């Protein structure tokens, strides 16, 4: 359901770490039902932007609104019920079982006293089923390879039953078939409870494939925001990536693809 009111709004966001400015004057809105892709060269501030929206970092200037509420007014636990994040890389300190790691996605919804309910277990298991990681459920997380790990992290993010799903390079270790599967699953969630998805992409072709709208960052500022067709063109590639790659049209879908 597309409403006029954006799900996420960033107004004049500036962020610097120590004295180095990382992001400047960011303004953007994300609407319900959208799959947003954030792209840009290394150091352009993609991950920083993700961290700002998920509430991990606090901007020096500007406001972030989630469902029209200022993010600084939302208590962290409540925010965790709304937003879940799939990290690019992560290291788990102790050898929890894969199913335990997925189950931790339910933590924002569980109180220590009541403990978890049957429903929580069902949700976790469903999430693992969707990402085809049930067969790894009993394995220790330290014994699991990169690709399986990514699916488990996605499962955990799904188990968190978020309204907003954020991902950082979710497909880098995935096999070709799993890449496709995951994109399908993510898109499906948009039909269910998830209102919007924001993902950081290194792979421009994947971004073009997944996202409804792309935001191209250049040196901490929004260079351009629009559909893949609008954003991925020779001009932008040359300007931002300083690359002379070729852009072709995908044989079946109306999206641009970049080849060297």
């Amino acid at each position, binding site marked *: 359901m597309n409403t006029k009111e954006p799900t996420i709004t960033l107004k004049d966001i500036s962020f610097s770490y120590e004295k180095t400015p990382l992001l400047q004057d960011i303004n953007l809105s994300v609407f319900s039902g959208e799959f947003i892709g954030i792209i840009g060269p290394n150091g352009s501030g993609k991950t920083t932007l993700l961290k700002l929206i998920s509430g991990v970092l606090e901007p020096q200037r500007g406001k972030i609104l989630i469902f029209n509420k200022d993010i600084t007014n939302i208590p962290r636990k409540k925010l965790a019920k709304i937003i879940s994040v799939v990290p690019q890389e992560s290291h788990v300190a102790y050898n929890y079982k894969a199913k335990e790691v997925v189950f931790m996605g339910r933590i924002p919804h569980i109180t*220590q006293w009541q403990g978890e309910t049957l429903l929580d277990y069902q949700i976790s298991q469903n999430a693992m089923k969707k990402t085809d990681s049930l067969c790894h459920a009993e394995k220790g997380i330290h014994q699991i390879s990169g690709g399986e790990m990514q699916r488990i992290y996605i499962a955990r993010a799904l188990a968190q039953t978020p309204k907003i799903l954020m991902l950082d390079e979710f497909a880098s270790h995935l096999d070709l078939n799993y890449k496709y599967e995951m994109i399908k699953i993510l898109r499906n969630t948009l039909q269910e409870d998830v209102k919007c998805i924001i993902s950081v992409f290194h792979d421009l072709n994947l971004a073009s494939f997944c996202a409804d709208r792309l935001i191209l960052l250049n040196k901490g500022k929004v260079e351009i925001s629009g559909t893949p067709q609008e954003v991925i063109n020779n001009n932008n590639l040359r300007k931002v990536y300083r690359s002379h790659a070729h852009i072709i049209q995908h044989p079946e879908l109306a999206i641009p693809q970049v080849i060297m």
Partner: protein
Amino acid sequence: MKYLTEKNNKYLYGYPNWKYKAFFVLVFGFIAILITGFIGLNFGTISIQPQKILSILWHHNTNDSLGIIIWELRIPRLIMAMLAGMTLAGVGGAFQGILRNPLADPYILGVSAGAALGACTGIALQFITGKYLTNILPIFALIGSFISMFLVYFFSKNKSHLPMTDLLLAGVAVNFFFSALITLLLAVSNRELHSMIFWLMGDLSNSSWQKISIIFLPVFAGSFLLIFSSLELNAMALGEEEALHLGIQTEKLRLRIFVIGSVMIAIVVSFTGLIGFVGLVIPHIARLIVGPDHRIMLPVSALIGAIFLILCDTIARTVLAPTEIPIGAITAIIGAPLFIHLLKRRNENNEY
């Protein structure tokens, strides 16, 4: 898909119902402590027959010298060992969780060095002034530990943040500095040297019902508070950011665990001296047996710690009777090889 069909409806697809597990573990652990305690009661300088011990226990007999030995000497000592073991292993597990570091022990944040310096200062003063200060040595130790804890907090605080690596580094630095001061004190002391070294290696020989009544409440209250944070500690294991994403207020959690754990350790150490390796090794054993889920691992760690220390104390009292070995020596002699063995097992299983 085959996995789905092997399930017990109650536990749903292999997920543990941890409440049942925890209850079973607690009951089993409690019984184990009672049995270990009774075994410990059988040992000492004076040999007393088990039947006699049972009769003394049953009739609460404190009339004759055997009854006094059991009720006033051995039982308080065993209870003290139990409480100390619980605290050290429980707080050790909690610290390893909050710092995401399997090498953390309860002394890592500077508590022990301060307590040691406080106690050694008290002992030195006792000989200088000629006044008899043994009863208030715990107060010296407690003040010392609070000073070192405060220093660690002060040095690692960055505006309103309490960053992890800074905490660890500050703890190491404070430990080094206070240890240097203690070495200095040891070097210029002469007659007090013996007392100081005994304190530094752990000493349960002065346990009494009065001391137990002082530390009983903080230990149990603190343990409950720590176990209450188990879910959050689980989340912390995923990583600082991941924990934030799961709604955990990591700064506050760190402060809470740090304060509760350190206060518990400070209070116990003030009475028992420094007992090492328990806080480092026992949580690993607990993790090996019941897994890293803190909701079960912390209580199990505390229980194993209690049993371990009761056994160590029994050995310390008995092996070279009538001479007593400081209990810290026993825990180190047993703990160090055990730790190395655990390390090798981890490497073989390709765990981190």
